[in-house]
């Protein structure tokens, strides 16, 4: 297992989608390769930061306005006409 091999599997490693044998090999690589450990760790943080700090939230006032507009348009429309 070298760094290039590790990077190829990084997604599945982070997503927990690997068979236990390959996962163990990747974990072993991380015990001695500091660079891959840092890349793995900061990539995981990248995902978590985007997940936990949802940008572009829909403001509640706008949300209600959109609901009214959508439901009104739906009621006026005929299903199957688009």
């Amino acid at each position: 297992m070298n760094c290039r091999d590790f990077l190829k599997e990084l997604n599945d490693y982070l997503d927990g989608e690997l068979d236990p044998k390959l996962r163990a090999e990747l974990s072993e690589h991380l015990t001695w390769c500091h660079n891959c450990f840092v890349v793995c760790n900061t990539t995981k943080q990248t995902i978590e930061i985007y997940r936990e700090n949802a940008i572009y939230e829909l403001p509640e006032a706008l949300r209600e306005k959109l609901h009214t507009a959508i439901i009104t348009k739906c009621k006026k429309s005929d299903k199957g006409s688009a």
Partner: protein
Amino acid sequence: MPAIQNTYGDTGVELELVQSARKGDMAAFEKLLKLYDRKIFRIAQNITHHAEDAEDVVQEAFLKAYKNLDRFEGNSKFYTWLVRIAVNEALMKLRKRKSDKTVSLDEDVDTEDGSMPREIADWAPTPEQNYSQTELREILSKTIQGLPVGFRTVFVLRDVEQLSTEETAEALGLSVPAVKSRLLRARLQLRERLNRYFAKKKKKTTQTVGAPNA
């Protein structure tokens, strides 16, 4: 290092609502609207980077879904189907805004820039705490905007909205390997770009590790 948990929920309720809405139950459709409007808005704004366009996308996507409920075959989840409609609407908005008819999910995906880890710098355990919520949102927004649309869309669907790889592929009309390749490059590019804000100032080194064969 533990894997990241996927909290994407089950869809029994969704199916019942779709069936009721199909029979004309507007309250059921409104529940679907309330379930997914925030997600669709986030996806739309991540693609268009324009609040008004994102509002239009939400309206148009739900209206189109409603009009075509009878054509929804139920082979996929309603949400995946809705995302597919919304992504197409958002791409159309982006094309209009850019006056560029060639904008697509395949734009710039062949460039290798920024996918290969160049800067290997560790971050603090919670680096986002060094910024106010407003500053942090600006950083995250600016950073993701720098990615090609095909990368940022895959990242938002997989990592923010937590669709599975297969659902993302279905929603975007891409193959599973294409989704995986784009997701890896999106994650690595975002990580690299966030380094400038989140990296610890000391012990900073610039070394290169092997690049994946994306």
